[in-house]
């Protein structure tokens, strides 16, 4: 039976049919009919942000921490353009978002009307797909397609632009079951012969390594379990990208830590020297590979990815398998168990030299840092934060920069979906709104945004959102008064010319918190850090924690640009060595 509904009613019926609980948004002229309808229904709750970009990142945090799509509703023109950063961020990090934008009425499109912009044109390169709905009878179908495309295959953001007159017009609601997208059929299973080839390489390898990424998170919670089974079945070492942290327990002995530009010594050396690399759901990003021509020169490479275009894009591989990480890893486990019963113990001897080598690299203790009793070291702050929160199911978001890398290095995750960070786009300002989205989805959990004092100011307005909805997010600022990563690069590569990377004026973060109606805490001394962190955790309200850290700490270890994985520098001592040898650095 078909019903006549208004466009606005169709939107909310469709959202309800997709089990949407929350939307993040901001009203405006071109979405007033939708906001009118919003208040007339009870199923879907709306989180009013303070800036559209915040809505986008909040939806990303919601999506990443739940595995469900994040929903955004914003107005035309500036509402839409303010969403561009969040859409691009979600596109780079494969986060499913459904963004609904209002548009000026159909008859005004193309006339440069008030708050008109070419939303589908602007967002075409930063969405997986987008639509301008010109016929109310196409609206339901378009929304269903949008959900399908956002959440299946390689997830990503989609956008539906709805002119205001379409929101008023009456049309037919079409249910989700009848929708087919001819040209869009993501491949989940993976080619059986390629999987067999991969297993043969695994059986022969003497120096293997698993290199896993965000694709494992996106393949669902089960995928992390299957990954643990695969790693345990093989006895191979495993490293993870920034996005993949949490899929494998950070404190497990087979885990070598994160790899890449600020990855551990053992992870990067193992990647360089391995004879078999098994990439599951990672994409050979340039922060991972370093110089591509020097990237793991002697290894055979297996690449499992749901996105066929990721395979052979940056690094040519020997075996490429298109499909869902969960499904493929699970077949791999089955085949290994069937073909090579007791593989781990029978294969132990073959890879024992490899593990010995890895232990030697491990002894470098590349994440260690000096002790300081007078000032708080940022690494120490993250370490204490971890130790004091690891007894509960904690969700961490970050902004972008040094603090992000220290968080990735020193906070150990044991579960997926607990770590929300802007990896691909590197969006400063991501962390606070993302934390809000996470807290909305997990009201009883501890949610901490590990931030820098520069990044946090990019979306600080969302603290007002947190206060309004009583979302007790904790903003843990590693405050060194510098854009730390910019300063670090200027130190290493531009002769310490700290051009515009020092913030000569900063707010008093304690007073800022109070102005917003949140709690402010400040720590200056290492001795008071634990007490104050405990105080922060115990407060059931939003907190800004101003952690004053040493000003000119660099983030190590580090692969300098243009270098290979085995040419890492571990700290300032290495810099000097290199300088003397040939002024390669500084």
């Amino acid at each position: 039976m078909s019903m006549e509904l208004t466009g606005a009613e169709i939107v909310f019926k469709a959202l309800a049919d997709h089990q949407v609980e929350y939307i993040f948004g901001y009203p405006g002229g071109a979405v007033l009919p939708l906001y009118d309808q919003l208040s007339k229904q009870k199923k879907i709750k709306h989180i009013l942000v303070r800036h559209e970009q915040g809505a986008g990142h909040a939806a990303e945090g919601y999506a990443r921490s739940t595995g469900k799509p994040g929903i955004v509703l914003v107005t035309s023109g500036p509402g839409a353009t303010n969403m561009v950063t969040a859409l691009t961020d979600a596109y780079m990090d494969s986060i499913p978002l459904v963004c609904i934008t209002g548009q000026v009425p159909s008859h005004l499109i193309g006339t440069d009307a008030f708050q008109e912009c070419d939303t589908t044109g602007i967002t075409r390169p930063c969405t997986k797909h987008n639509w301008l709905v010109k016929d109310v009878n196409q609206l339901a179908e378009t929304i269903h397609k949008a959900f399908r495309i956002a959440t299946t295959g390689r997830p990503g953001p989609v956008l539906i632009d709805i002119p205001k007159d379409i929101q008023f017009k009456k049309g037919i609601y079409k249910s989700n079951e009848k929708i087919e997208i001819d040209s869009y059929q993501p491949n989940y299973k993976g080619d059986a012969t390629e999987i067999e080839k991969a297993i043969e390489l695994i059986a022969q390898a003497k120096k293997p390594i698993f290199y896993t990424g965000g694709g494992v998170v996106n393949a669902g919670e089960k995928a992390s379990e299957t990954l643990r089974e695969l790693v345990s079945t093989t006895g191979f070492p495993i490293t993870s990208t920034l996005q993949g942290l949490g899929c494998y327990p950070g404190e497990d002995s087979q885990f070598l830590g994160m790899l890449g530009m600020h990855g551990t010594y053992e992870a990067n050396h193992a990647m360089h020297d391995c004879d078999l690399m098994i990439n599951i759901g990672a994409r050979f990003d340039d922060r991972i590979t370093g110089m591509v021509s020097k990237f793991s020169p002697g290894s055979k490479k297996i690449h499992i990815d749901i996105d066929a275009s990721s395979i052979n894009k940056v690094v040519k591989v020997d075996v490429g398998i298109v499909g869902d990480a969960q499904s493929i890893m699970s077949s791999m486990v089955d085949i290994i168990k069937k073909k090579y019963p007791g593989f781990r113990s029978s294969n132990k001897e073959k890879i024992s030299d490899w593990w010995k080598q890895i232990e030697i690299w491990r002894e470098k203790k590349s994440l260690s840092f000096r002790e300081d009793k007078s000032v708080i070291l940022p690494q120490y702050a993250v370490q204490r934060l971890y130790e004091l929160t690891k007894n509960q199911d904690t969700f961490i978001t970050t902004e972008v920069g040094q603090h992000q890398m220290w968080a990735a290095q020193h906070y150990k995750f044991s579960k997926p979906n607990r770590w929300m960070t802007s990896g691909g786009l590197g969006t400063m300002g991501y962390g606070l709104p993302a934390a809000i989205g996470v807290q909305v989805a997990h009201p009883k959990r501890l949610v901490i945004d590990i931030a820098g004092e520069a990044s946090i100011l990019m979306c600080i307005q969302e603290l007002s959102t947190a206060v309004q909805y009583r979302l007790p997010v904790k903003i843990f600022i590693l405050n060194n008064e510098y854009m730390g990563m910019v300063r670090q690069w200027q130190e290493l590569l531009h002769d310490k010319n700290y051009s515009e990377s020092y913030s000569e004026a900063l707010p008093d973060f304690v007073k800022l918190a109070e102005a917003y109606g949140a709690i402010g805490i400040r720590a200056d001394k290492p001795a008071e850090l634990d007490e104050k962190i405990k105080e922060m955790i115990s407060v059931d309200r939003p907190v800004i924690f101003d952690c004053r850290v040493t000003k000119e700490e660099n983030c190590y270890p580090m692969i300098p640009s243009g270098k290979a994985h085995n040419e890492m520098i571990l700290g300032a001592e290495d810099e000097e060595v290199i300088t003397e040898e040939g002024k390669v650095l500084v």
Partner: protein
Amino acid sequence: MSKSAYSTDITEEKLERVIIVAWVDNETGVLARVAGLFSGRGYNIESLAVAEVDEERNISRITIATNGTKLVIEQIKAQLLKLVPVHKVADFKIDLDKSVFKELALIKFIGDAEVLKQAEQICVDFKGEFLDKTPQSFIIQLVKKRSEINNFIKKAKPFGLASITRSGPLAMSKGSETIKDNKGKIL
């Protein structure tokens, strides 16, 4: 050490010319998606032709002449296949044994009787079809390979050649073979 956080470009591989064909849903914005993909990812478009080829299924065929290293050509195809309204993609290397390549050109000549007479002779030599004639001008149509049209233009240029429009090359595989579905596959 480089002063960049990115690695340096070391590609010295040879560029090859190729014609890429994509079968797409004939819907609003699809051409912008395809053209935007090329500009956004730094690929080159030499020429582009697009028209609906299957009214019933609402399918258009987009033909793009481009160039790139082997890896780039593979990436162009892979990225095109990633677009939702793209059904399948093919590339035609410039190999006359395997494929047919044709381009349509309309060319106008303007001049006095003496000049036009010489121009006409070249057109006849190249088997051009005369579409319009006045005492001061004529238009011919050429349906040929790109290089032959280039050759014609070079020869005819001094004889009143006034205006040219070209469709860009179209391509089709020879023999009974057609292009198979390759959506979601490694190329």
